[in-house]
Protein backbone atom coordinates (compact mmCIF):
# COMPACT_ATOMS: atom_id res chain seq x y z
CA UNK A 1 0.00 0.00 0.00
CA UNK A 2 2.73 2.46 0.99
CA UNK A 3 6.25 2.08 -0.25
CA UNK A 4 9.25 4.29 0.49
CA UNK A 5 12.54 3.62 -1.29
CA UNK A 6 15.69 5.35 -0.22
CA UNK A 7 13.77 8.39 0.92
CA UNK A 8 15.69 11.31 2.39
CA UNK A 9 14.72 14.81 3.38
CA UNK A 10 16.96 17.80 3.92
CA UNK A 11 15.73 21.22 5.07
CA UNK A 12 17.66 24.29 4.00
CA UNK A 13 17.46 27.19 6.39
CA UNK A 14 19.38 30.41 6.78
CA UNK A 15 21.13 28.86 9.74
CA UNK A 16 22.30 25.85 7.76
CA UNK A 17 20.90 22.55 6.63
CA UNK A 18 19.08 19.98 8.69
CA UNK A 19 18.96 16.41 7.53
CA UNK A 20 15.63 15.20 8.84
CA UNK A 21 15.47 11.78 7.18
CA UNK A 22 17.99 9.54 5.52
CA UNK A 23 17.66 6.39 3.44
CA UNK A 24 14.22 5.32 4.56
CA UNK A 25 13.10 2.05 2.97
CA UNK A 26 9.70 1.04 4.23
CA UNK A 27 6.88 -1.04 2.88
CA UNK A 28 3.50 -0.90 4.60
CA UNK A 29 1.08 -3.59 3.42
CA UNK A 30 -2.61 -2.89 2.87
CA UNK A 31 -4.58 -3.15 6.12
CA UNK A 32 -1.43 -3.03 8.20
CA UNK A 33 -1.07 -0.94 11.35
CA UNK A 34 2.42 0.50 11.62
CA UNK A 35 3.49 2.65 14.52
CA UNK A 36 6.45 4.96 14.30
CA UNK A 37 8.52 5.81 17.32
CA UNK A 38 11.67 7.82 17.69
CA UNK A 39 13.05 10.69 19.65
CA UNK A 40 11.62 14.15 19.40
CA UNK A 41 12.84 15.88 16.24
CA UNK A 42 13.95 12.69 14.52
CA UNK A 43 11.71 13.19 11.49
CA UNK A 44 8.49 11.29 12.22
CA UNK A 45 6.19 14.13 11.22
CA UNK A 46 8.33 14.74 8.18
CA UNK A 47 7.96 11.11 7.16
CA UNK A 48 4.18 11.31 7.39
CA UNK A 49 4.17 14.53 5.41
CA UNK A 50 6.17 12.81 2.69
CA UNK A 51 3.68 9.96 2.49
CA UNK A 52 0.76 12.40 2.49
CA UNK A 53 2.25 14.18 -0.49
CA UNK A 54 2.55 17.46 1.36
CA UNK A 55 6.28 17.59 0.81
CA UNK A 56 8.33 16.24 -2.10
CA UNK A 57 11.25 14.17 -0.82
CA UNK A 58 14.74 15.52 -1.39
CA UNK A 59 15.74 12.06 -2.54
CA UNK A 60 14.14 8.67 -3.05
CA UNK A 61 10.64 7.68 -4.11
CA UNK A 62 7.30 7.46 -2.31
CA UNK A 63 4.47 5.33 -3.70
CA UNK A 64 0.95 4.87 -2.36
CA UNK A 65 -1.35 2.18 -3.77
CA UNK A 66 1.20 1.55 -6.46
CA UNK A 67 1.27 5.11 -7.76
CA UNK A 68 4.08 7.60 -7.21
CA UNK A 69 2.97 10.31 -4.80
CA UNK A 70 2.81 13.72 -6.46
CA UNK A 71 0.39 15.37 -4.08
CA UNK A 72 -2.32 14.64 -1.55
CA UNK A 73 -4.82 11.87 -2.33
CA UNK A 74 -8.49 11.67 -1.43
CA UNK A 75 -8.20 8.19 0.05
CA UNK A 76 -5.45 9.21 2.46
CA UNK A 77 -6.36 11.12 5.59
CA UNK A 78 -3.83 12.98 7.66
CA UNK A 79 -4.27 13.87 11.28
CA UNK A 80 -1.74 16.58 12.14
CA UNK A 81 0.31 16.85 15.29
CA UNK A 82 -1.47 20.09 16.09
CA UNK A 83 -5.27 20.22 15.90
CA UNK A 84 -5.37 22.67 12.93
CA UNK A 85 -9.01 23.60 13.40
CA UNK A 86 -10.57 26.46 11.45
CA UNK A 87 -11.28 29.04 14.15
CA UNK A 88 -14.53 30.28 12.61
CA UNK A 89 -16.11 26.86 12.30
CA UNK A 90 -18.04 25.10 15.03
CA UNK A 91 -16.97 21.64 16.17
CA UNK A 92 -19.52 19.98 13.91
CA UNK A 93 -18.62 22.07 10.94
CA UNK A 94 -14.91 21.40 11.44
CA UNK A 95 -15.63 17.69 11.49
CA UNK A 96 -17.70 17.99 8.30
CA UNK A 97 -14.97 19.88 6.42
CA UNK A 98 -13.57 16.90 4.46
CA UNK A 99 -17.09 15.99 3.32
CA UNK A 100 -17.79 19.52 2.21
CA UNK A 101 -14.60 19.57 0.22
CA UNK A 102 -15.19 16.31 -1.55
CA UNK A 103 -18.37 17.18 -3.39
CA UNK A 104 -18.71 13.70 -4.84
CA UNK A 105 -18.74 12.19 -1.38
CA UNK A 106 -22.38 11.18 -1.39
CA UNK A 107 -25.27 12.01 0.93
CA UNK A 108 -24.45 14.86 3.24
CA UNK A 109 -27.16 13.87 5.69
CA UNK A 110 -25.66 10.46 6.30
CA UNK A 111 -22.27 12.06 6.87
CA UNK A 112 -23.89 14.41 9.31
CA UNK A 113 -25.18 11.46 11.27
CA UNK A 114 -21.75 9.92 11.13
CA UNK A 115 -20.26 13.19 12.42
CA UNK A 116 -22.64 13.21 15.37
CA UNK A 117 -21.77 9.60 16.08
CA UNK A 118 -18.05 10.38 16.06
CA UNK A 119 -18.49 13.45 18.22
CA UNK A 120 -20.37 11.35 20.72
CA UNK A 121 -17.74 8.65 20.49
CA UNK A 122 -14.97 11.05 21.53
CA UNK A 123 -17.14 12.51 24.30
CA UNK A 124 -17.87 15.90 22.80
CA UNK A 125 -21.66 15.71 22.70
CA UNK A 126 -23.08 19.08 23.74
CA UNK A 127 -20.15 20.92 22.17
CA UNK A 128 -21.20 20.51 18.52
CA UNK A 129 -21.91 24.19 18.02
CA UNK A 130 -19.02 25.65 19.98
CA UNK A 131 -16.01 27.32 18.42
CA UNK A 132 -12.50 25.86 18.84
CA UNK A 133 -11.28 28.59 21.19
CA UNK A 134 -13.90 27.49 23.72
CA UNK A 135 -12.41 24.00 23.92
CA UNK A 136 -9.58 22.58 25.97
CA UNK A 137 -6.45 21.28 24.26
CA UNK A 138 -7.53 17.66 24.41
CA UNK A 139 -11.01 18.50 23.16
CA UNK A 140 -9.51 20.22 20.14
CA UNK A 141 -7.42 17.16 19.44
CA UNK A 142 -10.52 14.99 19.57
CA UNK A 143 -12.27 17.23 17.06
CA UNK A 144 -9.29 16.83 14.77
CA UNK A 145 -9.52 13.07 15.25
CA UNK A 146 -13.20 13.02 14.27
CA UNK A 147 -12.34 15.06 11.20
CA UNK A 148 -9.76 12.53 10.11
CA UNK A 149 -12.21 9.66 10.60
CA UNK A 150 -15.30 11.10 8.94
CA UNK A 151 -14.58 9.85 5.45
CA UNK A 152 -13.58 6.25 6.30
CA UNK A 153 -10.25 6.66 4.50
CA UNK A 154 -8.23 3.83 2.99
CA UNK A 155 -5.00 5.08 4.50
CA UNK A 156 -4.72 6.99 7.74
CA UNK A 157 -1.63 8.92 8.73
CA UNK A 158 -1.86 9.95 12.37
CA UNK A 159 0.70 12.18 14.07
CA UNK A 160 0.49 11.72 17.84
CA UNK A 161 -3.30 11.66 17.77
CA UNK A 162 -3.76 10.94 21.46
CA UNK A 163 -0.95 13.04 22.93
CA UNK A 164 -3.29 15.46 24.70
CA UNK A 165 -5.74 12.85 25.98
CA UNK A 166 -6.08 11.24 29.36
CA UNK A 167 -5.35 7.55 29.84
CA UNK A 168 -8.99 6.50 29.77
CA UNK A 169 -9.94 8.38 26.64
CA UNK A 170 -6.76 7.09 25.06
CA UNK A 171 -7.74 3.51 25.81
CA UNK A 172 -11.27 3.96 24.55
CA UNK A 173 -10.17 5.63 21.38
CA UNK A 174 -7.36 3.22 20.62
CA UNK A 175 -9.83 0.37 20.92
CA UNK A 176 -12.14 2.20 18.56
CA UNK A 177 -9.26 2.73 16.15
CA UNK A 178 -8.46 -0.98 16.13
CA UNK A 179 -12.12 -1.76 15.49
CA UNK A 180 -12.19 0.62 12.52
CA UNK A 181 -8.98 -0.87 11.20
CA UNK A 182 -10.36 -4.39 11.43
CA UNK A 183 -13.75 -3.54 9.92
CA UNK A 184 -12.53 -1.45 7.02
CA UNK A 185 -9.03 -2.92 6.77
CA UNK A 186 -7.61 0.57 6.82
CA UNK A 187 -3.87 0.98 6.46
CA UNK A 188 -2.60 3.08 9.34
CA UNK A 189 0.71 4.77 10.02
CA UNK A 190 0.67 6.11 13.52
CA UNK A 191 3.22 8.24 15.36
CA UNK A 192 3.30 8.11 19.14
CA UNK A 193 5.61 8.79 22.03
CA UNK A 194 3.94 6.20 24.22
CA UNK A 195 5.83 2.98 23.68
CA UNK A 196 3.00 0.93 25.17
CA UNK A 197 0.53 2.52 22.84
CA UNK A 198 2.86 1.71 19.96
CA UNK A 199 3.01 -1.92 21.01
CA UNK A 200 -0.66 -2.36 21.75
CA UNK A 201 -1.80 -0.87 18.46
CA UNK A 202 0.78 -2.03 15.97
CA UNK A 203 1.32 -4.92 13.66
CA UNK A 204 4.82 -3.57 13.31
CA UNK A 205 6.69 -0.88 15.21
CA UNK A 206 9.28 1.16 13.30
CA UNK A 207 12.01 2.65 15.46
CA UNK A 208 13.81 5.66 14.03
CA UNK A 209 17.24 6.90 15.07
CA UNK A 210 17.66 10.44 16.34
CA UNK A 211 18.35 13.16 13.83
CA UNK A 212 18.95 12.32 11.05
CA UNK A 213 16.12 9.81 11.19
CA UNK A 214 17.17 6.45 9.82
CA UNK A 215 15.40 3.17 10.44
CA UNK A 216 17.02 1.54 13.42
CA UNK A 217 14.75 -1.45 13.62
CA UNK A 218 11.35 -2.77 12.66
CA UNK A 219 9.70 -4.88 15.34
CA UNK A 220 6.86 -7.22 14.43
CA UNK A 221 4.23 -7.54 17.19
CA UNK A 222 2.63 -10.95 17.41
CA UNK A 223 0.13 -10.35 20.22
CA UNK A 224 -3.39 -11.39 19.11
CA UNK A 225 -6.11 -8.72 18.73
CA UNK A 226 -8.12 -7.09 20.09
CA UNK A 227 -5.63 -5.71 22.55
CA UNK A 228 -6.17 -3.12 25.21
CA UNK A 229 -3.98 -0.43 26.67
CA UNK A 230 -5.24 -0.69 30.22
CA UNK A 231 -5.09 -3.74 32.41
CA UNK A 232 -5.17 -6.64 30.00
CA UNK A 233 -4.31 -10.21 29.35
CA UNK A 234 -1.08 -9.52 27.52
CA UNK A 235 0.40 -7.19 30.10
CA UNK A 236 3.65 -9.06 30.37
CA UNK A 237 4.14 -9.44 26.64
CA UNK A 238 3.49 -5.72 26.15
CA UNK A 239 5.86 -4.89 28.96
CA UNK A 240 8.53 -7.13 27.53
CA UNK A 241 8.40 -5.67 24.04
CA UNK A 242 8.12 -2.18 25.47
CA UNK A 243 11.28 -2.77 27.41
CA UNK A 244 13.07 -3.80 24.23
CA UNK A 245 11.82 -0.80 22.35
CA UNK A 246 12.90 1.42 25.20
CA UNK A 247 16.37 0.02 24.93
CA UNK A 248 16.37 0.48 21.16
CA UNK A 249 15.40 4.11 21.55
CA UNK A 250 18.16 4.66 24.04
CA UNK A 251 20.82 2.80 22.06
CA UNK A 252 23.65 5.01 20.81
CA UNK A 253 24.36 4.56 17.13
CA UNK A 254 27.94 4.92 15.96
CA UNK A 255 26.88 7.39 13.29
CA UNK A 256 24.91 9.39 15.81
CA UNK A 257 26.05 12.86 16.56
CA UNK A 258 24.82 16.38 16.39
CA UNK A 259 23.92 16.70 12.75
CA UNK A 260 21.99 19.94 12.86
CA UNK A 261 24.67 21.56 10.76
CA UNK A 262 25.50 18.57 8.68
CA UNK A 263 24.58 17.68 5.13
CA UNK A 264 23.03 14.28 4.63
CA UNK A 265 25.41 13.61 1.77
CA UNK A 266 28.19 13.24 4.29
CA UNK A 267 26.62 10.44 6.24
CA UNK A 268 25.46 7.42 4.40
CA UNK A 269 25.25 4.91 7.17
CA UNK A 270 22.27 2.61 6.95
CA UNK A 271 20.80 0.87 9.96
CA UNK A 272 17.79 -0.86 8.57
CA UNK A 273 17.08 -4.18 10.15
CA UNK A 274 13.95 -6.18 10.03
CA UNK A 275 13.69 -8.11 13.24
CA UNK A 276 10.80 -10.48 13.70
CA UNK A 277 10.49 -11.95 17.16
Amino acid at each position, binding site marked *: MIRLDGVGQVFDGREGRVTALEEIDLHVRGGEFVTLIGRSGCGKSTLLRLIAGLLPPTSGAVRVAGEPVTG*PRRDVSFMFQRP*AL*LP*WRSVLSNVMLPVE*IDKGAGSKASYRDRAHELIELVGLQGFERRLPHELSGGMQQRVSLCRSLIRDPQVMLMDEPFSALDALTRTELSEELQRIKMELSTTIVFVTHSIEEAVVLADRVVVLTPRPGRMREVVEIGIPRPRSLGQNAHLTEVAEISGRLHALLAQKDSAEKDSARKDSAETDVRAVQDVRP
Partner: protein
Amino acid sequence: MTNRRSWLTSSPVSAVVLPIVGLLAVMGLWWGATVVFAIEPFLLPSPWAVLQKFFEQPGQLLSETGTSLLETIEGFLLAIVIGVPIALVIVRSVILERLVYPLLLMVNAIPKVAVAPLLVIWMGFGQWPKVVMVLLLCFFPIVISTAEGMKSTPTELVELMRSLKASRAQEFFKLRLRYAMPQIFTGFKVAISLAVIGSVISEFVGATKGLGYVIQQSGASADTTLAFAAIMLLSVMSVVLFYGLALLEHLLLPWAQEKR
Protein backbone atom coordinates in the same frame (compact mmCIF):
# COMPACT_ATOMS: atom_id res chain seq x y z
CA MET B 1 -6.79 39.56 34.76
CA THR B 2 -8.52 40.28 31.56
CA ASN B 3 -12.24 40.30 32.03
CA ARG B 4 -12.79 42.75 34.83
CA ARG B 5 -13.89 45.89 33.11
CA SER B 6 -15.57 49.05 34.22
CA TRP B 7 -18.79 50.24 32.63
CA LEU B 8 -16.70 52.76 30.71
CA THR B 9 -15.16 50.00 28.67
CA SER B 10 -17.91 47.44 28.55
CA SER B 11 -21.24 49.21 28.45
CA PRO B 12 -22.72 49.64 25.01
CA VAL B 13 -23.96 53.05 26.14
CA SER B 14 -20.40 54.25 26.50
CA ALA B 15 -19.73 53.11 22.95
CA VAL B 16 -22.12 55.83 21.89
CA VAL B 17 -21.55 58.38 24.63
CA LEU B 18 -17.76 58.51 24.51
CA PRO B 19 -17.50 59.30 20.78
CA ILE B 20 -20.04 62.07 21.31
CA VAL B 21 -18.03 63.42 24.23
CA GLY B 22 -14.94 63.42 22.03
CA LEU B 23 -16.84 65.17 19.30
CA LEU B 24 -18.14 67.85 21.63
CA ALA B 25 -14.65 68.37 23.01
CA VAL B 26 -13.31 69.06 19.54
CA MET B 27 -16.21 71.31 18.66
CA GLY B 28 -15.37 73.19 21.84
CA LEU B 29 -11.70 73.48 20.88
CA TRP B 30 -12.62 74.57 17.38
CA TRP B 31 -14.98 77.20 18.72
CA GLY B 32 -12.40 78.29 21.27
CA ALA B 33 -9.84 78.70 18.53
CA THR B 34 -12.11 80.81 16.38
CA VAL B 35 -12.79 83.05 19.38
CA VAL B 36 -9.34 83.27 20.97
CA PHE B 37 -7.38 83.72 17.76
CA ALA B 38 -10.20 85.75 16.21
CA ILE B 39 -9.98 83.59 13.11
CA GLU B 40 -11.77 85.12 10.17
CA PRO B 41 -14.91 83.24 9.24
CA PHE B 42 -13.82 82.82 5.60
CA LEU B 43 -10.83 80.90 6.89
CA LEU B 44 -12.56 78.89 9.57
CA PRO B 45 -16.14 79.61 10.49
CA SER B 46 -17.25 78.85 14.02
CA PRO B 47 -18.95 75.51 14.58
CA TRP B 48 -22.19 77.29 15.49
CA ALA B 49 -22.25 79.14 12.21
CA VAL B 50 -21.76 75.82 10.45
CA LEU B 51 -24.57 74.16 12.39
CA GLN B 52 -26.80 77.14 11.72
CA LYS B 53 -26.04 76.89 8.02
CA PHE B 54 -27.06 73.29 8.11
CA PHE B 55 -30.39 74.07 9.75
CA GLU B 56 -31.09 76.84 7.27
CA GLN B 57 -31.71 74.28 4.57
CA PRO B 58 -31.42 70.83 6.07
CA GLY B 59 -33.63 69.26 3.42
CA GLN B 60 -31.50 70.37 0.51
CA LEU B 61 -28.20 69.50 2.18
CA LEU B 62 -29.51 66.11 3.16
CA SER B 63 -30.60 65.39 -0.39
CA GLU B 64 -27.12 66.36 -1.64
CA THR B 65 -25.71 64.06 1.01
CA GLY B 66 -27.94 61.31 -0.30
CA THR B 67 -26.55 61.78 -3.80
CA SER B 68 -22.95 61.56 -2.60
CA LEU B 69 -23.78 58.64 -0.35
CA LEU B 70 -25.27 56.68 -3.20
CA GLU B 71 -22.24 57.24 -5.41
CA THR B 72 -19.96 56.34 -2.54
CA ILE B 73 -21.72 53.07 -1.83
CA GLU B 74 -22.04 52.09 -5.47
CA GLY B 75 -18.38 52.76 -6.13
CA PHE B 76 -17.32 51.04 -2.94
CA LEU B 77 -19.32 47.91 -3.74
CA LEU B 78 -17.93 47.93 -7.26
CA ALA B 79 -14.45 48.20 -5.79
CA ILE B 80 -15.14 45.11 -3.67
CA VAL B 81 -16.54 43.24 -6.64
CA ILE B 82 -13.48 44.06 -8.71
CA GLY B 83 -10.81 44.27 -6.03
CA VAL B 84 -11.35 40.98 -4.23
CA PRO B 85 -11.08 38.83 -7.39
CA ILE B 86 -7.93 40.71 -8.37
CA ALA B 87 -6.51 39.89 -4.96
CA LEU B 88 -7.45 36.24 -5.42
CA VAL B 89 -5.63 36.14 -8.73
CA ILE B 90 -2.61 37.85 -7.24
CA VAL B 91 -2.34 35.36 -4.40
CA ARG B 92 -3.05 32.46 -6.71
CA SER B 93 -0.20 33.10 -9.08
CA VAL B 94 3.18 34.64 -8.44
CA ILE B 95 3.54 35.28 -12.15
CA LEU B 96 0.29 37.19 -12.43
CA GLU B 97 1.14 39.05 -9.27
CA ARG B 98 4.41 40.24 -10.71
CA LEU B 99 2.72 41.23 -13.94
CA VAL B 100 -0.29 42.94 -12.42
CA TYR B 101 0.81 44.49 -9.16
CA PRO B 102 3.02 47.23 -10.58
CA LEU B 103 0.21 48.24 -12.90
CA LEU B 104 -2.27 48.48 -10.06
CA LEU B 105 0.27 50.55 -8.20
CA MET B 106 0.68 52.89 -11.12
CA VAL B 107 -3.04 53.36 -11.55
CA ASN B 108 -3.37 53.93 -7.83
CA ALA B 109 -0.60 56.50 -7.84
CA ILE B 110 -2.27 58.71 -10.40
CA PRO B 111 -3.53 61.86 -8.72
CA LYS B 112 -7.22 61.37 -9.27
CA VAL B 113 -8.03 65.06 -9.41
CA ALA B 114 -5.94 65.28 -12.52
CA VAL B 115 -8.02 62.66 -14.30
CA ALA B 116 -11.47 63.73 -13.11
CA PRO B 117 -12.05 65.78 -16.27
CA LEU B 118 -10.85 62.88 -18.40
CA LEU B 119 -13.45 60.60 -16.83
CA VAL B 120 -16.17 63.07 -17.66
CA ILE B 121 -14.88 63.33 -21.20
CA TRP B 122 -14.91 59.56 -21.57
CA MET B 123 -18.10 58.80 -19.70
CA GLY B 124 -20.26 61.87 -19.81
CA PHE B 125 -22.08 63.67 -17.07
CA GLY B 126 -24.07 60.81 -15.62
CA GLN B 127 -23.38 58.65 -12.58
CA TRP B 128 -20.68 56.58 -14.22
CA PRO B 129 -17.67 58.87 -13.97
CA LYS B 130 -18.56 59.41 -10.31
CA VAL B 131 -18.83 55.74 -9.54
CA VAL B 132 -15.62 55.03 -11.43
CA MET B 133 -13.81 57.78 -9.57
CA VAL B 134 -14.91 56.30 -6.25
CA LEU B 135 -13.78 52.92 -7.51
CA LEU B 136 -10.37 54.25 -8.55
CA LEU B 137 -9.80 55.88 -5.19
CA CYS B 138 -10.77 52.97 -3.03
CA PHE B 139 -9.96 49.73 -4.85
CA PHE B 140 -6.32 49.59 -3.84
CA PRO B 141 -6.60 49.22 -0.07
CA ILE B 142 -9.14 46.48 -0.73
CA VAL B 143 -6.86 44.62 -3.11
CA ILE B 144 -3.79 44.86 -0.96
CA SER B 145 -5.40 44.02 2.36
CA THR B 146 -7.22 41.06 0.83
CA ALA B 147 -4.06 39.79 -0.82
CA GLU B 148 -1.81 40.27 2.20
CA GLY B 149 -4.43 38.79 4.49
CA MET B 150 -4.74 35.69 2.34
CA LYS B 151 -0.98 35.31 2.10
CA SER B 152 -0.69 35.30 5.87
CA THR B 153 -2.87 32.22 6.33
CA PRO B 154 -0.96 29.83 8.64
CA THR B 155 0.90 27.08 6.79
CA GLU B 156 -0.72 24.60 9.13
CA LEU B 157 -4.22 25.39 7.85
CA VAL B 158 -3.12 25.55 4.22
CA GLU B 159 -1.56 22.11 4.60
CA LEU B 160 -4.78 20.85 6.12
CA MET B 161 -6.74 21.97 3.08
CA ARG B 162 -4.13 20.49 0.75
CA SER B 163 -4.18 17.20 2.63
CA LEU B 164 -7.94 17.10 2.03
CA LYS B 165 -7.21 17.61 -1.65
CA ALA B 166 -9.22 20.80 -1.68
CA SER B 167 -9.31 22.51 -5.04
CA ARG B 168 -7.62 25.86 -5.34
CA ALA B 169 -11.05 27.49 -5.31
CA GLN B 170 -11.95 25.69 -2.09
CA GLU B 171 -8.62 26.60 -0.55
CA PHE B 172 -9.41 30.22 -1.31
CA PHE B 173 -13.05 30.41 -0.40
CA LYS B 174 -13.20 28.03 2.51
CA LEU B 175 -9.89 28.97 4.04
CA ARG B 176 -7.85 31.92 2.86
CA LEU B 177 -10.65 34.37 2.26
CA ARG B 178 -12.27 33.52 5.56
CA TYR B 179 -8.99 33.70 7.38
CA ALA B 180 -8.23 37.07 5.85
CA MET B 181 -11.63 38.55 6.71
CA PRO B 182 -10.45 40.66 9.64
CA GLN B 183 -7.66 42.11 7.52
CA ILE B 184 -10.03 42.57 4.60
CA PHE B 185 -12.31 44.55 6.85
CA THR B 186 -9.38 46.73 7.81
CA GLY B 187 -8.94 47.37 4.10
CA PHE B 188 -12.63 48.16 3.74
CA LYS B 189 -12.41 50.61 6.60
CA VAL B 190 -9.53 52.44 4.95
CA ALA B 191 -11.29 52.29 1.61
CA ILE B 192 -14.61 53.68 2.75
CA SER B 193 -13.17 57.07 3.68
CA LEU B 194 -11.37 57.22 0.37
CA ALA B 195 -14.64 56.32 -1.33
CA VAL B 196 -16.31 59.32 0.27
CA ILE B 197 -13.48 61.56 -0.90
CA GLY B 198 -13.77 60.02 -4.35
CA SER B 199 -17.40 61.01 -4.62
CA VAL B 200 -16.49 64.58 -3.70
CA ILE B 201 -13.67 64.83 -6.20
CA SER B 202 -15.87 63.41 -8.92
CA GLU B 203 -18.53 65.99 -8.13
CA PHE B 204 -16.03 68.78 -8.61
CA VAL B 205 -16.28 68.24 -12.36
CA GLY B 206 -19.48 68.18 -14.34
CA ALA B 207 -21.89 67.52 -11.51
CA THR B 208 -25.04 69.38 -10.59
CA LYS B 209 -25.70 67.76 -7.28
CA GLY B 210 -23.90 66.14 -4.39
CA LEU B 211 -21.80 67.56 -1.59
CA GLY B 212 -18.79 68.00 -3.85
CA TYR B 213 -20.90 70.21 -6.01
CA VAL B 214 -22.03 72.16 -2.96
CA ILE B 215 -18.41 72.73 -1.93
CA GLN B 216 -17.51 73.83 -5.43
CA GLN B 217 -20.64 75.97 -5.57
CA SER B 218 -19.96 77.61 -2.25
CA GLY B 219 -16.96 79.17 -3.94
CA ALA B 220 -19.35 80.99 -6.26
CA SER B 221 -20.90 82.80 -3.36
CA ALA B 222 -17.79 82.92 -1.18
CA ASP B 223 -19.81 80.99 1.35
CA THR B 224 -17.07 79.33 3.41
CA THR B 225 -19.61 78.38 6.02
CA LEU B 226 -21.62 76.41 3.50
CA ALA B 227 -18.45 74.64 2.37
CA PHE B 228 -17.72 73.69 5.96
CA ALA B 229 -21.26 72.49 6.48
CA ALA B 230 -20.81 70.21 3.47
CA ILE B 231 -17.43 69.05 4.76
CA MET B 232 -18.95 68.31 8.15
CA LEU B 233 -21.68 66.27 6.50
CA LEU B 234 -19.04 64.37 4.56
CA SER B 235 -17.16 63.67 7.75
CA VAL B 236 -20.27 62.45 9.48
CA MET B 237 -21.14 60.28 6.48
CA SER B 238 -17.67 58.82 6.55
CA VAL B 239 -17.84 58.10 10.27
CA VAL B 240 -21.25 56.49 9.95
CA LEU B 241 -20.13 54.29 7.06
CA PHE B 242 -17.02 53.31 9.02
CA TYR B 243 -18.98 52.26 12.07
CA GLY B 244 -21.47 50.49 9.84
CA LEU B 245 -18.60 48.38 8.55
CA ALA B 246 -17.34 47.82 12.07
CA LEU B 247 -20.79 46.62 13.11
CA LEU B 248 -21.00 44.34 10.11
CA GLU B 249 -17.61 42.91 11.00
CA HIS B 250 -18.73 42.33 14.54
CA LEU B 251 -21.79 40.45 13.33
CA LEU B 252 -20.07 38.45 10.62
CA LEU B 253 -16.86 37.56 12.42
CA PRO B 254 -17.70 36.64 16.01
CA TRP B 255 -14.67 34.37 16.07
CA ALA B 256 -12.30 37.23 15.40
CA GLN B 257 -13.18 39.55 18.23
CA GLU B 258 -10.49 41.88 19.38
CA LYS B 259 -7.96 40.73 21.91
CA ARG B 260 -6.43 43.32 24.14
